[in-house]
């Protein structure tokens, strides 16, 4: 059996797969953050908590309503999106006239409240969520063993990310969004209801987080702190990719997941910090981020 730089291929591909899985979540979450930031100029600190709420919604639906994984994959993001719409309408929208810092503080506070509530109700230990029957087991690819569910996560994330990219960059609705990101006042002067667009954008962005939460439930267990563990890395991803760039968020998310995986193989000690090292380097060389435009 050949080895690659002294690493057996199973270990290499295994870690790359893990990296790809993490990358799938980084991409989904940083995409939502980028969409929200572009339109609202708010750094949504509640993003990780809403990802957790998505996972819990799926778990609660199964536990109390008998609603399984597949319907939850649609319903939980809708619930989270609706919750986001209410948040935006009742709270966030009051802050746009003030400094951006207030939006950040509000969403940070919301994250703490949400996490605190779920910890109070369900404790800090994880709740298991079963992999749906259709995705049990795995397949041997020859060079590695691929659990079906993990393959599904990567595919689902890619499809949703690229679909979002297409909708924003290539459709008429997306043109409204891009234009309103650039000059909301003028878009309003053409007869478009920009405040409503902002509300829906926030709802959509957090629905992406809810979707990621459901995808994550069978892998990581459902845990009140699952979001805050992940979101720090995701913020680093957004800084590296560049705030507000859609493709940048997707590419950077997957790339950094893979980079983490590779680091685990070749220099495991650094695997937890490699993203932050990259962030520091990018900030020094290109402060607007790899795909960001200077403002």
């Amino acid at each position, binding site marked *: 059996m050949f080895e690659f730089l002294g690493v057996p291929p199973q270990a290499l591909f295994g870690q790359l797969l893990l990296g790809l899985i993490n990358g799938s979540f980084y991409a989904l979450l940083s995409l939502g953050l980028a969409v929200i930031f572009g339109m609202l100029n708010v750094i949504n600190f509640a993003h990780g908590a809403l990802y957790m709420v998505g996972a819990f919604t799926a778990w609660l639906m199964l536990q109390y309503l008998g609603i399984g994984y597949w319907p939850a994959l649609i319903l939980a993001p809708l619930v989270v999106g609706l919750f986001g719409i209410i948040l935006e309408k009742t709270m966030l929208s009051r802050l746009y006239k003030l400094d951006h810092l207030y939006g950040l503080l509000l969403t940070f506070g919301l994250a703490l409240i949400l996490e605190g509530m779920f910890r109070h109700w369900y404790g800090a230990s994880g709740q298991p969520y079963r992999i749906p029957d259709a995705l049990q087991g795995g397949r041997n690819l020859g060079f590695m063993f691929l659990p079906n569910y993990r393959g599904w996560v990567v595919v689902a994330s890619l499809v949703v990310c690229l679909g979002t990219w297409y909708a924003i960059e290539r459709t008429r609705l997306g*043109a409204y969004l891009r234009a309103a990101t*650039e000059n909301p006042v*003028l878009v*309003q002067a053409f007869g478009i209801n920009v405040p409503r667009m902002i509300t829906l954008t926030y709802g959509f962005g957090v629905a992406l987080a809810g979707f990621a939460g459901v995808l994550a439930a069978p892998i990581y267990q459902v845990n009140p702190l699952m979001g805050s563990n992940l979101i720090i890395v995701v913020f680093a991803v957004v800084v590296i990719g560049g705030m507000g760039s859609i493709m940048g968020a997707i590419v950077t998310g997957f790339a950094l997941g893979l980079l983490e995986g590779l680091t685990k193989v070749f220099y495991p000690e650094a695997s937890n910090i490699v993203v932050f090292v990259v962030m520091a380097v990018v900030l020094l060389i290109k402060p607007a981020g790899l795909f960001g435009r200077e403002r």
Partner: protein
Amino acid sequence: MPDDVMLEVADLHAFYGESHVLHGVSLTVPKGEVVTLLGRNGAGKTTTLRSIMGIVPRRDGSIRMEGTETVGLAPHRIPRLGIGFVPEERGIFSSLDVEENLMLPPVVRPGGMAVEDIFRLFPNLKERRRSQGTKLSGGEQQMLAIARILRTGATLLLLDEPTEGLAPVIVQQIGRVIRELKAKGFTILLVEQNFRFAATLADRHYVMEDGRIVDMIPNEQLEANMERLHEYLGV
């Protein structure tokens, strides 16, 4: 209000935060006419147009579009009464290509110009359909800013200094376009500093000073009032 009035502004006040910029502006734009708003830098011409569109922080008074009061309407409802806006800075979107810029403003009424007719009026834009909006020259961007509101069915066009900073040939071309639009029946409120240009197009001229309308001169009396106008505009 008589049927032949498109826009009637009465005792309009506008504010940017603490600063009171318009002090009781009144003007009338009859249907089918080209009316200019002349005045020195900072007189309040742009603020008047922005107030009509409802995009200043605060405005009081009355602005009626074909009899409908718009002060108090949400900003996105005002263009839906049939008003198209070309801002002073042109407002071409850099994240949209030329065609997307052209197609952006939603149709607010039936009867807008067909895209082919718009391209006939502005042939350069057709060739550059796929270019990034802000890669166009200044003149082309101005053409695009005008072109995109012709599709929407708006009958009143607000143009803020469409000739500013453009070469004389382009200014002439824009003059031809405005004349053609007038012939098609559009009503136009035109902000201009260049009154020689305005004189070739307009039916009447309002003169602004320090946030007030200080004079109204019908175009046929322009010659007789040249001296007064020079004084107002400080040329």
